[in-house]
């Protein structure tokens, strides 16, 4: 992607939030206490929201804070506290050395694969003109560029999503019910 020179201010903040996101993610997987882990994950999600805003996806950034950091992670914290798992267990829950070694190898292999994938060439013709999304946001506001395709081109997918959410709610209620056994099939 050929792009004009980005301001240093922009580049600095992009790297700043990217590094905060990665550092918080590392802190998240290494914390023993589930509550601390969840809060580090919230920090990662906030940094990702900042990255979305820097990538011209302002509305997605807001939704990231509201839905991911605000709703989904609160549900996680609710469950941690409901099950009284807030304290780090004395043993810790990390697996043994063999697992860690295997996980490290899998991680390295995966990283190599993903980096190989990022070298793939996408035809130049597919790319939008320079700053197309930014101009669209400036002209129509932050929501209209996302809402347009969502309610026209992807309307069917949007409606199917409501069925998915209904199924998830019913499933969660059935699974969370106390008392008699749930017979499946």
């Amino acid at each position, binding site marked *: 992607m050929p792009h004009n020179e980005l301001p240093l201010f922009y580049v600095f903040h992009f790297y700043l939030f990217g590094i905060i996101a990665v550092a918080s993610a590392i802190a998240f997987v290494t914390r023993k206490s589930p509550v601390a882990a969840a809060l580090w994950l919230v920090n990662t999600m906030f940094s990702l929201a900042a990255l979305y805003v820097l990538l011209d996806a302002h509305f997605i950034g807001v939704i990231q804070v509201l*839905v991911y950091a605000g709703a989904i992670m609160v549900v*996680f914290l609710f469950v941690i506290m409901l099950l009284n798992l807030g304290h780090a267990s004395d043993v810790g829950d990390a697996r043994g050395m063999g697992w860690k070694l295997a996980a490290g190898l899998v991680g390295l292999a995966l990283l190599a694969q993903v980096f190989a994938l990022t070298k793939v060439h996408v035809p130049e013709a597919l790319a*939008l003109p320079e700053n197309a999304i930014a101009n669209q946001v400036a002209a129509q506001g932050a929501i209209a560029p996302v809402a347009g395709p969502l309610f026209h081109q992807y309307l069917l997918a949007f409606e199917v999503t409501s069925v998915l959410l209904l199924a998830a709610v019913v499933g969660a209620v059935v699974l969370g019910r106390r008392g008699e056994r749930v017979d499946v099939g």
Partner: protein
Amino acid sequence: MLAESLFFSAVLFTIGVVGVLTRRNAIIVFMCVELMLNAVNLTFVAFAQVYGVAGQVFVFFVMTVAAAEAAVGLAIIIALFRHRHTVDLSNINLLKG
């Protein structure tokens, strides 16, 4: 900033995978899955900046699926905890053969 976004996304995804493989607490494993979903979302948003806004719409659907998954998954974890009084995955080995 496409290349940088893809770099951060790849690193976050790998951290999520390593977390799934090394932790035994079911809730933390579940949060690692959320981290992987977030990493993929970053890729979508980065590509959306260059190749059109459809990527942002897709992030929307990924978030919906993540919300549904969190609701059902946490309900399963609660049901499991009621049954076994632990969320340690090494104690939950009914299908281990």
